[in-house]
């Protein structure tokens, strides 16, 4: 899979390495939800800096992860959205409601530990 999920203390860090197919997005979603339960994590950071495109399916999947995690008491932070991706997403009206958003991994960790 093009995503590695690392455990870092109370948090999980999922870093996406390359463009994802819809199937891989579903795998990522399921893996994240399973790992959060397994490690009793308090926060999840998803680093999407390597993505040139975030389509509606990916956005919805990330939102699902964020909502589900929230119900289990974990925060979800999406980090590393590129400027072009941000512009495209806002043009298509894609939102990442219920997820926290930070500039990059460092800012994401700060946000969770603050």
């Amino acid at each position: 899979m093009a995503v590695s999920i690392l455990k870092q203390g109370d948090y999980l860090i999922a870093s996406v390495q390359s463009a994802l197919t819809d199937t891989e997005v579903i795998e990522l979603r399921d893996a994240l939800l399973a790992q959060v339960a397994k490690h009793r994590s308090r926060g999840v950071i998803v680093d999407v800096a390597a993505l040139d495109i975030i389509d509606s399916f990916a956005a919805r999947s990330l939102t699902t992860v964020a909502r589900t995690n929230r119900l289990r008491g974990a925060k979800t932070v999406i980090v590393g959205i590129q400027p072009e991706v941000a512009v495209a997403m806002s043009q298509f009206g894609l939102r990442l409601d219920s997820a926290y958003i930070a500039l990059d991994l460092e800012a994401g960790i700060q946000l969770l530990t603050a």
Partner: protein
Amino acid sequence: MENADSAVDGVAQPHDPERSLLHELVAHLRQHLTPLREEWTRRITDAQLLSVMTADEIFSEVTAVYDNYVDALETGSIEALEAYAKNLSERIIPRGVETHEVLGVVLLLRDVLARSLFEKYQRDSGLLNRVLDVYEPAANRIAVTVGVSFVQERERVIREQQSAIRELSTPVLKVREQLLILPIIGALDASRARQLTEQLLKGIRDNRAKVVVIDITGVPSIDMTVANHMVQAVRASGLMGARVIITGLSADIAQTLVGLGVDLSMMQSVGDLQGGIEEAERQLSYAVTRTGSSAPEHEE
């Protein structure tokens, strides 16, 4: 008045009648240089053209243009005149001379010269017709050249100014760690709004900003397209992890936005720039305190 003309007439006969007519014409215009120039200057003043220039200035330009004009008639080459027209445009455009004035002046010269030709050849209408046949196309070409040079020069100035405005128009300023301000001055159109979004996102990434204050005090009005661009810019900033505070919404713009039904739910808005910066500092947990006794007597 017409003493030297007969001599020119004598040479005017050979193989190329058009060329010799032109020579005759030019000789006539050179000979009556002073009265024609004065007549032209008088008509420029009467028509209240070039009102931003002094009489002396007008006279010296008139002299130069007249000479160039006659030279262009004689040689049929408009390059020297074109260069002069360009140079003249460069000098007079910054002083606010309008296109209609320049065209009016050139057409006046054309009229003045045509009048003098009428007067000279009025007894021989056949010759007058041939002279005008030679004169008119050349004169029209010169008028077009001068007009086009002026307009081209003006367009060049406009293009330069546009690019200067583009470069200056969207500064992204860092006022504190993680806090940017984006003052927007002047009218926004779709292309400027797009450029603004780009600069904003680049600024957020380069400065690792968390809060951006966009001040639109200097924006006179906003339409639907621009409003949507602003909303998109704010959303995109959110996706980069930065909050946006909009300040300086005038009553007009606020009403427009409400009237257009723009979704403002994700926009935080504060009355003026000072309030916006204070709010941003609060969100970033900055506490600004005054030290020492340099405080003014009247607190605002």
